[in-house]
């Protein structure tokens, strides 16, 4: 019974540990890349380093730092690579604008093609007469 109560209260203690903070930790760490398993977020990964970094995030948020401070802390150590949303800067311009450039290029090609079709010469009277003959 005593053991059961202990387990019960321990469970309660964990549950009560500031759900708002836990939510912030979870929200922030799902924007960050785990460096060990690079296609997982910090929130999803259970690699020891991810656990350490999550604890670091929690510790810093708890001590009153903002999300932006924590991100700056991690970027200073691991580089922009930790961010799942790369910042728009000189070396990422192509990454951000590339798809739009390709889209514009595709629309341009489409436009050329349509215009060529539209501008195609109308049938002359001779052509019409020939078509009518063939259809008879």
């Amino acid at each position, binding site marked *: 019974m005593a053991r059961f109560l202990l387990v019960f209260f321990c469970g309660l203690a964990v549950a009560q540990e500031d759900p708002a903070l836990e939510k912030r930790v979870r929200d922030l760490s799902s924007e960050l890349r785990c*460096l*060990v398993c690079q296609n997982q977020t910090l929130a999803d990964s259970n690699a020891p380093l991810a656990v*350490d*970094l999550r604890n*670091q995030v929690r510790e810093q948020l708890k001590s009153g730092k903002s999300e932006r401070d924590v991100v700056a802390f991690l970027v200073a*150590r*691991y*580089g922009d*690579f930790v961010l799942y949303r790369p910042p728009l800067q000189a070396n990422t311009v192509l990454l951000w604008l590339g798809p739009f450039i390709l889209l514009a290029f595709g629309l341009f090609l489409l436009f050329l093609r349509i215009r060529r079709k539209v501008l195609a010469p109308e049938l002359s009277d001779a052509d019409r007469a020939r078509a009518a003959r063939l259809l008879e």
Partner: protein
Amino acid sequence: MKLAWVLGAFVALLVLLAVGLRLNPREVPSPLIGKPAPAFELPLLAAPDKIFSQKDMLGRVWVLNVWASWCAPCLVEHPQITRLAAGAVPVVGLNYKDAREDAMPWLARNGNPFVASVYDGAGRIALDYGVYGVPETYVIDRQGVIRYKRIGPVTPEILKEKIEPLLKELNG
């Protein structure tokens, strides 16, 4: 004309893939290159009551090697680290998330190339150094600035082509 377009696009794609597939996505460029080595004051592995700081190495070109007894690639690179230490450059070991009773026998077994080994049991300082894959190796210049970082084991090629020339340049 159409064939030329298709062929051109194909060749362009081929070049893109040839370059892209050769890149190593695990090689994350460190933002610490050119920055002062993060400060630490850590106990020595062999003597927990003695404190060692990166400041103790100011004025010398040195190498920081992050290792652990549980890390298999650390054993693989150990001959290179030993060779590096046999040269004129002091190598400081940073024992990462390890237990003293595992780390000490590891050094006794495999040889201890380090002028000093500091003990970072919680991995707190390693975090400041942006460590994410042990072993990691840093070359730090006389002013205490990080000049090179290697993530993963130091191979004989990397030692010969990257680290040794850099050390020569820094010491020259």
